[in-house]
């Protein structure tokens, strides 16, 4: 059921209560929620609002990085375990203004720093399609709450592929619009120049509808765009005739799973039969091998500075020492997990004066080359496309991943190209591979969000996969 139908066929109380109860009932199996927010007060406030609002009484979930005044926002970290937001993020305000009811904060990798959701302070989040498998991350909680039918829309953030990868693993739509399209004010950062706010929905039109509500210039975020907000929903027509789709051949060549490749090939043929013009494009292979290291250096350098505010002196969990310096050290030591510390060390290393030119500045130069290369291939096509993952979600205890393999470096990490460039990018369901969902990812040129959504809608119509709910309660 899409959001419009949901509004037409239920009362706000009905849909909010159902979501709230369901969120509780799936919690034991999925472990997706960090904090529940009693929706009663918000629902009561609806009486004074117009029922024409696009999210009138629609239950939604915020990733636990998004501030909402007087609610707990932990960033799925230990150090902010007791943090109560003193202010609203811009998107929180926009959602409420649109009539949405926020029922909770969802689990993520701490501060969005991870791709598994295994680093969340409250523990891993399970995949509703197989509870022994991971949700994907970092926005894992939001992804599984949409996939399991708790809420029709959840907010995520995406710094490398943190919306688009879990969407692939959960048979839902994961959309990261252009950089600057949605304000980041009030959203706990990972890496400011790569961070995007985006959404999970069960169909493309709901993603478009969400963007209409969330997008727009915000004077609190200097990187937000002044371009007018478009009627993304109405612009989703889904006619693929003449649409030029470039297949990223490097990604196809590095995927081993034949079922994934077959399904993708099958999809391409169907798209062609609908009038799409399919071609192969080749990104610079050397640059693709550099995606992950470039990403790690830039993201962690920014992250180490971004999280220097967490010293527990003004807020957060304080471990008191003899001096203020000692208190800061004890609090940070206790409040951050091992992976976070590792990333902070890498980030600091990249920024040291003696390393900065060779590491951080070089990574920035490589980023520029990568963006130029992506721009080049987008000159001749409307979107570039490839499977969003080589196969379905890994098992929690999967130690087989070779982080230096071509499959890992390219097929599993190429989507960061849309973070380097800030280009809009969306994952939509493709089908089931070995019983697990796998999505397909599309990226368009900067600020062509409407065109991207239109083509994604065409693909959704082609696959026929939308509004899928994987129940986990029974």
């Amino acid at each position, binding site marked *: 059921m899409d959001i419009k139908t949901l509004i037409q066929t239920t009362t706000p109380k009905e849909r909010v209560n159902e979501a709230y109860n369901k969120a509780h009932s799936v919690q034991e199996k999925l472990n997706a929620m960090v904090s529940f927010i009693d929706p009663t007060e918000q629902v009561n406030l609806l009486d004074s609002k117009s029922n024409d609002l696009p999210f009138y009484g629609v239950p939604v979930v915020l990733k636990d990085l998004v501030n909402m005044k007087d609610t707990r926002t932990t960033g799925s970290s230990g150090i902010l375990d007791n943090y109560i937001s003193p202010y609203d993020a811009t998107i929180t305000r926009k959602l409420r203004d649109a009539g949405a009811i926020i029922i909770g904060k969802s689990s993520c990798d701490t501060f969005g720093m991870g791709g598994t959701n295994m680093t969340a302070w409250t523990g891993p989040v399970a995949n509703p399609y197989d509870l022994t498998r991971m949700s994907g991350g970092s926005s894992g909680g939001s992804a599984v709450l949409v996939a399991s039918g708790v809420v029709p829309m959840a907010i995520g953030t995406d710094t490398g592929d943190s919306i688009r990868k879990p969407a692939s693993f959960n048979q839902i739509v994961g959309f990261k619009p252009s950089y600057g399209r949605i304000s980041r004010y009030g959203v706990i950062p990972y*890496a*400011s120049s790569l961070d995007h706010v985006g959404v999970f929905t069960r169909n493309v039109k709901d993603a478009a509808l969400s963007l209409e509500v969330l997008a727009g210039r915000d004077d609190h975020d200097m990187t937000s765009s002044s371009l007018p907000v478009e009627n993304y929903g109405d612009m989703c027509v889904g006619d693929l005739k003449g649409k030029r789709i470039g297949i990223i051949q490097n990604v196809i060549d590095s995927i081993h799973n034949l079922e994934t490749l077959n399904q993708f090939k099958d999809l391409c043929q169907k798209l062609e039969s609908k009038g799409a013009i399919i071609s192969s494009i080749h990104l610079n292979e050397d640059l693709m091998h550099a995606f992950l290291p470039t990403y790690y250096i830039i993201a962690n350098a920014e992250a*180490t500075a971004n999280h220097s*505010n967490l010293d527990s002196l003004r807020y957060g969990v304080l471990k008191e020492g003899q001096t203020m310096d000692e208190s800061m050290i004890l609090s940070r030591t206790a409040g951050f997990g091992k992976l976070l510390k590792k990333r902070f060390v890498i980030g600091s290393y990249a920024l040291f004066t003696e390393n900065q030119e060779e590491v951080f500045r070089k990574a920035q130069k490589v980023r520029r080359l990568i963006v130029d290369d992506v721009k080049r291939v987008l000159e001749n096509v409307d979107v570039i496309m490839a499977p969003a993952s080589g196969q379905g979600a890994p098992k929690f205890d999967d130690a087989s991943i070779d982080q230096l393999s071509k499959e890992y470096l390219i097929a599993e990490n190429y989507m960061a190209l849309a973070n380097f460039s800030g280009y809009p990018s969306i994952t939509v369901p493709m089908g089931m591979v070995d019983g697990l969902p796998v999505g397909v990812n599309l990226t368009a040129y900067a600020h062509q969000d409407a065109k991207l959504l239109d083509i994604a809608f065409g693909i959704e119509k082609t696959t026929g996969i939308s509004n899928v709910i994987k129940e986990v309660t029974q």
Partner: protein
Amino acid sequence: MNYETVIGIEIHCELKTKTKMFSSAPVSVNSQPNTCVNEIDLGHPGTLPSLNKEAVRLSVMACHALNCEIDPLIKFDRKNYYYSDLPKGFQITQQFHPIGRNGYIDIPTDSGLKHIRINRLHMEEDTAKQYHSGDETWIDFNRAGTPLVEIVSEADIRSAHEAMIYVEKLRNILVYLGVTDGKMEEGSLRCDINISLREVGTEEFGVKTEIKNLNSISNIEKAIQAEVIRQTDLLENNQPVEQATRRYDDVQKTTILMRKKEGSVDYKYFPEPNITPVLMDPNWLKSIIDNLPELPDHREKRYMEAGLNAYDAGQLIQNKALSDFFDELIKETSYVKLAANWCLSDILANFSTKQLLEKAYSLKVKEMGNMINALGKQEISSKQAKDIFVELLKGNDYHQTVKVLNIEQVSDQSVLVKMVEDILNENEQSIIDYHNGKDRALGFLMGQIMKKSKGQANPVITNQLLLEGLMKRKP
């Protein structure tokens, strides 16, 4: 051995904006601690900076007045370090692209004007203020995020006196621009002095120390003098000068070690990703520069062209509030020298700078102008002027006061002629004395007329009539 003193000065200057550098919280003016703060100033998770346009405007003004090249592309960087007065764990500053570069000011010295080069002027945010009491530390975040410019001179300064003149002149320029209130004692203008000695005739710099927390212009001079003595003693005794940060102790009249600089902190500067570079509109830049307020040098020149001597002009411009008052006053009178004298004595004696700035007085400038005009035309004596001024301070009008004090001038020719004739008739001997060359007789006769008129005879006309009467009675 003969040593040359080499000094470079860094000045941190708080900008007079309504709100903070990167947040909409008000800039604190003696407010209750921790009341002028919002989530941005406290570095709460998820907050982002938004640049204060007014701070940029004031910085552009300062750059222009200090003859800096202005970079039209505004960029910021992060300076990373952990300290309890730094909420975000980094300070947003302009390390790589300062808004101003390669400026200078000329300072007066005994051997003429001296060019002091300014290396850079950059914008940044202030830290919170810490108060230590016993083993407790209290933090007031009101100051956190206050807009600052840092102005860094080249090591062109060669004496304590030059340093003092440099800071004084620079502060005066910034105060005239309205960029800052420049109060050193309240910390809105703070100086760090880098100082080293080298043998006269050598090029290589000696080891420098930095003196921080100087809270007055006069302490700059005293601190440098003390540090020169200290460093000279060390060098004379073949002891090394240690690179360190020191402070000046006004009681002991010497500098005290604060901390040694052993392997300086790596601030890991990198470009601030949350502030997209802002290209200033050339028309906006031009309008700022075209509308720059009058600078002290220009004002001094204008005063001297109007007839003031260099000393008076210099004294007036030292105090912008007084100088502004003087400018108002000379709109009402062309007796510029008299006006300056009154400003530098009676106005200064009766009003504080704060009063002048806030125009917190009852005195009407127009009425004071009337008084000075009368004094200039010798319609009243200086003594009478002092009495009148006391009334003017209460807000009274000049003409009314003159009436009330009964010191209205008699300028009527026929009345005065009669008075002169009467006095001459009563003082035959004085007429003879006058014509015998005894000048005192004239004064005596004037005095008699004044006495008779109760001081109200117009002295200029009376003097003229008296001379005429005496000529007529030449024996």
